[in-house]
């Protein structure tokens, strides 16, 4: 879906720096779903490394072809078959070295060829991560190496903070489709209780009479037996009518309904 956004890089126009607007194709995968995956990865790696692993999440997005090319460059890609959508775990060469190195207590490993043992360790780590894709892929099978990221649409990354200092990418073959929920109808609101207030009609009073008001004094409102009143809901005038008493309870007999924008003052 296209969203209006500002370009991340500012450009110079004279002495000003401005950011151009543009329409961006954004993923509809909820950040909360990606957070569940990230938290699962945190738990899984914490259990594997027997250490506290803090993670940060890069929000889901829809990379363009150059983005996928950058993601897949020098990366190991493990496909994960899911019941709802297929996924992939992307581990760049540097991150593969760091993940495998972290299992042996190393920190800050740079990109290098992995030994057979390190490769096995990495596959075990990726295997543990594959199970964490269930919230976005459904029931998953064990990850297996795939050659390319072609056909994937959505991508987000989980950054593993100290001591691992690595990133794990998650690619999804399908971005969620926007689902329009049916809107509320009046029937859905019939059982909701609201507070309606009624303002009694106004009466003009001499200032002297007002000054003479005291406890026990009576202030008459209107001259007729029925007093005009206005019903309000949440401060907005709804109806005009006459106030009176019906079966020992105060009541407002609705005379006219007030349209929105009729100029009736709000409470």
């Amino acid at each position: 879906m296209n969203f209006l956004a500002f370009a991340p890089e500012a450009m110079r126009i004279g002495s000003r720096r401005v950011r151009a607007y543009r329409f961006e194709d954004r993923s509809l995968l909820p950040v909360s779903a990606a957070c569940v995956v990230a938290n699962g990865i945190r738990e899984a790696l914490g259990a594997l490394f027997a250490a506290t692993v803090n993670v940060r999440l890069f929000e889901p997005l829809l990379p363009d072809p150059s983005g996928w090319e950058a993601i897949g460059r020098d990366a190991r890609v493990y496909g994960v078959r899911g019941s709802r959508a297929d996924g992939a775990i992307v581990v760049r060469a540097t991150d593969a070295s760091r993940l495998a190195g972290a299992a042996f207590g190393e920190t800050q490993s740079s990109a290098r060829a992995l030994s057979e043992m390190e490769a096995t360790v990495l596959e075990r780590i990726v295997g543990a991560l594959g199970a964490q894709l269930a919230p976005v892929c459904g029931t998953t099978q064990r990850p297996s190496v795939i050659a390319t990221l072609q056909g994937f649409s959505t991508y987000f990354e989980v950054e593993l903070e100290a001591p691992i200092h690595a990133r794990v990418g998650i690619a999804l073959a399908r971005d969620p489709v926007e689902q329009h929920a049916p809107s509320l109808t009046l029937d859905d609101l019939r059982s909701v209780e609201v507070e309606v207030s009624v303002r009694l009609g106004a009466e003009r009073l001499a200032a002297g009479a007002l000054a003479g008001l005291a406890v026990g004094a009576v202030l008459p409102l209107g001259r007729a037996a029925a007093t005009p009143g206005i019903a309000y809901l949440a401060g907005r005038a709804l109806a005009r009518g006459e106030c009176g008493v019906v079966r020992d309870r105060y009541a407002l007999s609705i005379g006219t309904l007030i349209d929105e924008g009729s100029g009736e003052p709000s409470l």
Partner: protein
Amino acid sequence: MLVSASTERALDYIAQRASDVQRAYAPGAVPAFDDVANARSAVSKNVDPLSIALPNDAYLITRDAPSDPLYTRDGGLQVRDGLLVTQRGSPVLGYASAENAPVGDLAIDPVDRALGRVQNLRIEADGTFAYDRTVVDPRSGTREMQRIAVGRLALARFPAATKLGIVDATRASAPAGVVPHVGRPGDGNFDRVVPMRREGSHIDIDRSLEKLKDAYTAFDALAAAHKAQSKLGKTAMDLLK
């Protein structure tokens, strides 16, 4: 007709003086001759976070692959294809964030760049080339800005009275056999850089023009001497005949 060695030297001298005049407005330009150097150049403020003013006597290190490093005092930098480069597009060298990293290119993470995560690119006072990216704490769901340091600029300083070779308007090369001292801004050997500033030329245009005129005058005098010498020789030959 062969050009005498003294004429050749005089022409070279004029060319170098003319080069100083031509570069008198190039940012960070350093003169070929000390007698036209400004003690302090004008430093202008700007809003460019990739623009810096360097400490005195310090140079940025750039390279034109595959040649040797070149040096510049022009702190107007930019990013091209993820690399920190000079206005002419030459990569600016520095120390990557990893410990004990050798001096090399300063490159933004290619995935961050390709996915549009790079925000607020800047050079900080300690020479750190940094940017921000938005991350989410998955436990709370809150977004936060994360500072990423790509690396720190490398600065070079030459021994006093070293005469650098002028390469173009803003870049110079080290003389053969001279190795500069290299460090980081604010490391104790170099002062910090000043962000959002750009240094002007170190060349005094008025004195450069005077010296260029002097060079032409000297050349004219040399030409007159050659002419007189030639005339004298001809007269001597005529007398002999």
